[in-house]
């Protein structure tokens, strides 16, 4: 059990890194508290697996520190960090039985045989592997194999953390849910720090208390699924989380207003104070499709838009519409009237987010 701290950590695979792009992990500070259930969410190639391998010790970071309970472990190999890792494809020892697979890490640690017996049976019970204990591991199904690889992590006492690298990729959809619940249950039971890498936001949200969203080698936001949804700190988070992702509009700042084509939107005062003196490359306004207000009738605060398309997704509709030349989306309840051709929409202030250089600008007192 351990608290894992990343201190100015960075990693590059190139020998002579010049630009930030050369870094698979750009400098980051991050604390994974003991006993937390975390997800590391991001698209392929964003550095999730690299970060995971640095935490487990399969990879030594090129810069910065990694601390387990305050002790620097940068150059400690995985075996000395007492960490467990479950990989994308189940790794099992083909020639061994399920029992021997589970006992393997214990035998490598020269644990007395009677302790191995009791520990393996305990874990097998939790993972519902008991009936399979004497089967050859190579004849198991993919989800059983993945449970065996998980079990090998769990049999050891006091593992600092269990790391999962997209462990459900090869599992059938209906079993995914079951296995994910099992993970959650194990987390509650053992109070082990778990870090779960995935590119599936649903998987991340159901598993983790807190999600770290990674993008281009950085953690762009670390927060609860709720926070990520309501208050994305970076345009990427807005775009990546939610389905469909956040709507964005490129705007210019002119005096007191954001200008979007021929439209003028008033800038809230607190935000204006903050961005007025900021050098910027881009300003974007973002709003989630869920928060776009669709009116039944024309009214003063609503903009008239052309409805392009409407998709029925069962319990809700996604309406695509054109505001000036920009395509945006809105999510409608199934009992809401679906506008045809023309619609009137507005953006509630509290949900309209301002992003300068892709990062959220917040009013301070929020």
């Amino acid at each position, binding site marked *: 059990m351990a608290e894992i701290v990343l201190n100015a950590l960075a990693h590059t695979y190139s020998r002579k890194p010049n630009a930030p792009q050369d870094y698979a992990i750009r400098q980051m500070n991050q604390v994974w508290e003991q006993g937390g259930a975390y997800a590391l969410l991001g698209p392929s190639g964003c550095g999730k697996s690299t970060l995971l391998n640095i935490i487990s010790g*399969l990879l030594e970071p090129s810069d910065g520190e990694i601390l387990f309970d305050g002790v620097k472990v940068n150059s400690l*190999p995985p075996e000395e960090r007492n960490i467990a890792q479950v*990989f994308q494809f189940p790794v099992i*020892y*083909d*020639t061994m039985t399920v029992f021997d697979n589970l006992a393997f890490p214990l035998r490598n640690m020269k644990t007395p045989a009677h302790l191995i017996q009791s520990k393996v049976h305990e874990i097998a019970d939790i993972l519902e592997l008991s009936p399979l204990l004497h089967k050859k591991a190579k004849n198991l199904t993919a989800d059983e194999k993945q449970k065996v*690889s998980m079990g090998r992590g769990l049999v050891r006492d006091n593992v600092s953390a269990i790391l999962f690298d997209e462990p459900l990729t090869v599992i059938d959809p209906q079993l995914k849910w079951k296995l994910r619940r099992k993970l959650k249950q194990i987390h509650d039971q053992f109070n082990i720090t778990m870090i779960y890498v995935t590119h599936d936001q649903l998987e991340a949200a159901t598993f983790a208390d807190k999600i770290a969203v990674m993008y281009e080698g950085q953690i762009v936001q670390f927060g609860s699924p709720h926070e990520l949804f309501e208050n994305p700190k970076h345009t990427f988070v807005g775009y990546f989380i939610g389905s469909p992702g956040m709507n964005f509009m490129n705007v210019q700042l002119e005096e007191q207003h954001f200008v979007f084509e021929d439209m003028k939107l008033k800038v809230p005062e607190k935000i204006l104070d903050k961005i007025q003196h900021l050098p910027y490359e881009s300003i974007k306004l973002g709003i989630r499709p869920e928060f776009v207000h669709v009116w039944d009738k024309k009214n003063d605060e609503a903009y008239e838009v052309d409805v392009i398309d409407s998709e029925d997704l069962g319990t809700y509709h996604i309406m695509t519409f054109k505001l000036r030349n920009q395509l945006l989306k809105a999510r409608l309840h199934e009992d809401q009237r679906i506008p045809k051709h023309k619609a009137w929409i507005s953006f509630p202030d509290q949900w309209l987010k301002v992003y300068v250089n892709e990062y959220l600008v917040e009013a301070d007192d929020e």
Partner: protein
Amino acid sequence: MNKIENNKAWFLVLPVFVLVAFSAIIPLMTVVNYSVQDVFDTNTRYFVGTEWFKAILNDAALQSALMKQFMFSFTTLSIEIPLGIGIALLMPKRGMAASLCLVLIALPLLIPLNVVGTIWQIFTRSDIGLMGWSLREMGVAYNISRNPVDAWATIILMDVWHWTPLIALLCYSGLRSIPEAYYQAARIDRASRWAIFRYIQLPKLTNVLIIGILLRFMDSFMIYAEPFVLTGGGPGSSTTFLSQALTTMAIGQFDVGPAAAFSIIYFLIILAVSWVFYTTIMNMQKEK
């Protein structure tokens, strides 16, 4: 529905039938035919039943050749297999070094069999051969045409030199196909180097090793050209293996009948050993 009777369709099988007949069945039947007859000349022949088979099985020289043959195959295999695996494990995994290694290791495989024999024949000569000369200079009495032990050792060394690369290459390709995650998981499970070999690498090599062992067994059991060139089967008959004995009998002495019976027995032995080996391995792998 009425099934249309059209037996002419059977003619479509004819090409395959002809091909197999000429490539396998007819030559084999010819041998069977000879093996049960005593042939004097093209017009004079007598049916002798299983007599040649009995004679061959009771022939002391052939029995000893068979024993030597088994000894030889067993010895070379038990050296080449572990050595090949070892080399594959030590080979660099990527980059220029890996390519260079592969080419260097594969070189002996590219040399024609009788050239291998010739190379080693010269290599072992005490007047001009590097090994023979060096050993003589070191005071070692080494002579493959007088001392059977020297002859055996040299033939085995030659075979190991020639064929270990095959095993090494097969194993190397097998090792390369193991995903990195297995090694990472093993590190996390604190597996020792030996445990990684025993529980990850060796199981993943089983399939290539089966092929390797079968190929090497068959080839070593049929070895002919190399010892023929190197020692000529001597000194005495100490390195006369089965195929050389057979050649002498069939072509040298023109004993077609016994040679045919011998061929059939030879063939059946290889078939039987390969089959036993293969089924044993397969049964060992059988699912519980």
